[in-house]
């Protein structure tokens, strides 16, 4: 973990309320796809955690949905402005688990961390399939980006306005060797029920510190209590214990 000042390099709107921001700075603490960073925004007390979508040299790409004061403030930031960022948080995805044909399943703003993962897996020569689920056509983003790095991509929309009508579980291929997923909890539960291989599931929880000190984001697992920010956000399928 490191704290560094990052500079906003670019920001663009991907959908009605989803933004992509590019930040430049010391990215050396980011060691794995699926990790997250924690941004300290002006006039807000707690930092805001966001998963890393892409990393190229000193450029960090984050994608976020505007859901509250933190993400609203972030969406108003313009190139040249600076933000203190804690980087290299969380365990991230382990590409060694992938096998030859990994399946990536993302829902909504759960899609971004899978992009850097897809790039890493492609660089390792894996045949990557990505199933990206959204509610409706206006919410779809990053389909082109996944195709451009050589992934086989299926997009689902719940209302059928684009791609396959239905949920991500309606578009699963027959053959895959490991599942990597991130998205809302109902989607994760459905994926957990449907898949026939091991899986790496990335969870979201409201955090205090983001580095394991406050016990704000604890969860129960088969192997004991874990902190989503420290032992997570990625948990293996066999250790997940769903709470009702």
């Amino acid at each position, binding site marked *: 973990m490191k704290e560094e000042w990052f500079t906003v390099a670019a920001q663009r709107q991907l959908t009605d309320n989803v933004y992509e921001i590019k930040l430049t700075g010391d990215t050396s603490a980011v060691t794995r796809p699926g990790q997250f960073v924690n941004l300290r925004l002006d006039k807000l007390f707690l930092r805001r955690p966001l998963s890393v979508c892409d990393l190229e040299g000193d450029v960090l790409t984050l994608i976020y949905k505007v859901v509250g004061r933190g993400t609203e403030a972030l969406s108003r930031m313009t190139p040249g402005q600076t933000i203190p960022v804690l980087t290299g948080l969380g365990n991230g995805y382990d590409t060694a688990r992938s096998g030859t044909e990994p399946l990536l399943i993302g829902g909504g703003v759960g899609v971004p961390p899978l992009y850097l993962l897809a790039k890493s897996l492609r660089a390792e020569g894996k045949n990557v399939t990505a199933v990206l689920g959204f509610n409706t056509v206006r919410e779809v983003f990053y389909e082109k980006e996944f195709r451009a790095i050589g992934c086989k991509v299926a997009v689902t929309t719940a209302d059928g306005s684009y791609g396959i009508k239905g949920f991500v579980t309606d578009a699963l291929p027959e053959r895959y060797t490991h599942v990597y997923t991130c998205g809302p909890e109902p989607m994760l539960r459905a994926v957990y029920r449907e898949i026939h291989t091991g899986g790496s599931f990335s969870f979201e929880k409201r955090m205090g510190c983001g580095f394991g000190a406050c016990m704000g984001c604890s969860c129960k697992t088969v192997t004991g209590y874990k902190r989503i920010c*420290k032992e997570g956000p990625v948990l293996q399928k066999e250790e997940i214990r769903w709470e009702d």
Partner: protein
Amino acid sequence: MGRLSVDLCGIGLDNPVIPASGTFGYGWEFAELYDINILGTFSFKGTTREPRFGNPTPRIADCPAGMLNAVGLQNPGVDRVINIELPKLAKVFHKPVMANVSGFSVAEYAETCAKLDACPQVGWLEVNISCPNVHGGGISFGTDPASAASVVREVKAVTTKPVIIKLTPNVTDIAAIAKACEQAGADGISLINTLLGMRIDLRTQKPVLANTTGGLSGPAVFPVALRMVWQVAHAVKIPVVGMGGVGSAEDVLEMMMAGAAAVEVGAANLIDPWACQKIIRDLPDAMDRYGIRELKDLRGE
């Protein structure tokens, strides 16, 4: 003895800066970031007799100039703290540590304190009496002078190390509770614990915290904390450890001017993991700016 050194219940501290319980774990996460031996000491995660998962999540909510938490005393239980956490801590921290203890009955407080009192690494017992008193009909031990005094007496009867009682600010007369603790034999008072608060999510129209209410900490509570530290420091003769929204060297000086012998730093650690390191580094310059030669000169009338 440096110009930052202070005394807390007969044990010397290199400086008055103490990370507060619940914001510093058992030290390990921070020892990976900096040498935690620069601290005066730290107060470890509130420990109970049995392991606890704590409250359901969400347990955290952001607030203007602060945060709410309703973690609910998640901890591995005193036996695992003694057998796993303290040996691990011994590798990276070589000073007496402050053992923070919580409980749900007088007997539980006494048992947990006795076990930790027997650990050579423990310098002080900080007894948190702001939990529901399951034996007394749902009130906090810390909101009633007689209940507070009963915890102090039972703990003192089975321990040898300094016992510091951590008080809740959610009371009408904090000085009366502090005095009751002093008369029952407490060696020190620490305050404030968090202020009870609440937030509602505008979109769902439901409380943000699964527990509905939580404790407010951070800069928002600093003036309240300072006032209560001042009141208690003028009501008792035993040392007072001040905390509540402290985030800078200036805040530490202000707390000590209010009568604190040492100062705990809580929420600041969560947004800046290096907060205590920076406060200690900044103290000498801040003292120079206000003509303070030695910190121990600050305390007193």
